[in-house]
C-alpha cells in the first residue's frame, strides 16, 4: 500500500475507508471485550473515559497485546462479508 494509492482516493472513498475502519474495530472490540472479566471491562470504561492517552495505550498493550493480529483477521472476515453482500446486491 503506497501513498500514491491514498492520493488517488476521492473524499467519498476516504469516508468509506473510515467507515470500514470503524466496522473492523467494532469487531475487534467485540472479541476483546467479550473475553474480559467484569473487572477489566470496568477498568476499560474508566480508562477510556479519561483524557489520559498513555493510560489508554497501556491498557491496550496489557489487555489486547495481539491487537494487530486480531485486526488483520477481522479485516479479512469483514472483506469477505462485504464481498458476499456485494454478490447478493448485484
Amino acid at each position: 500500500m503506497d501513498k500514491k494509492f491514498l492520493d488517488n482516493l476521492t473524499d467519498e472513498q476516504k469516508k468509506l475507508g473510515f467507515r470500514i475502519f470503524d466496522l473492523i474495530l467494532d469487531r475487534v472490540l467485540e472479541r476483546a471485550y467479550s473475553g474480559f472479566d467484569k473487572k477489566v471491562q470496568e477498568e476499560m470504561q474508566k480508562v477510556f473515559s479519561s483524557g489520559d492517552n498513555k493510560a489508554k495505550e497501556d491498557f491496550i498493550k496489557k489487555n489486547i497485546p495481539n491487537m494487530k493480529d486480531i485486526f488483520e483477521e477481522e479485516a479479512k472476515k469483514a472483506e469477505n462479508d462485504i464481498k458476499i453482500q456485494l454478490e447478493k446486491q448485484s
Partner: protein
Amino acid sequence: MRTELELNTEPESPSPDTIKPADVVLDAPKSLVVNAVEVVAEQKGEKSIVPQELGQKVKDFFSPEKNWESAKRISSPVISTGRVLGFMVFKVLLNILKFSKELIAKRGDVGFAESFGLGKDMFDYNQKKEKKH
C-alpha cells in the same frame, strides 16, 4: 477537434485482468459498495455487547481520520498503530472496489448473453412458425 475515425470508434470495455488501482478508484460503483458496507456494519452492530459510548471512545482513540494529520508531528506508538491499522483498512477498500468492478463486468456479460438468448429464442420461434405454414 475529434476526427471521424475517433467518433466512430467505440471505447473498448476493460478486462478485469487489466484493472489498475487508479482505474478502480475512478470507476468503481460507489453506491453499491457503500450499501454493502452499511448492511454488514448494521448486521454486526445489532448484536454488540460493547457499550456504544465506550466503542466510540476507543474508535476516536485509534481513528486514522483524526491521527494521520498529526502523525508527522507526534511520534507516538499509538498513532503508528493507528496508521498500520489504517493501511490494512485501505487494502480492504482496494480489494472491495476491485471486486465490485469485476462483479459488474461479469454481470454485464451475463446480461448480454441472457438478452441474446431471449432474442435468439424469439427469432427461432418465428422461423419455426413460418416452417409450419
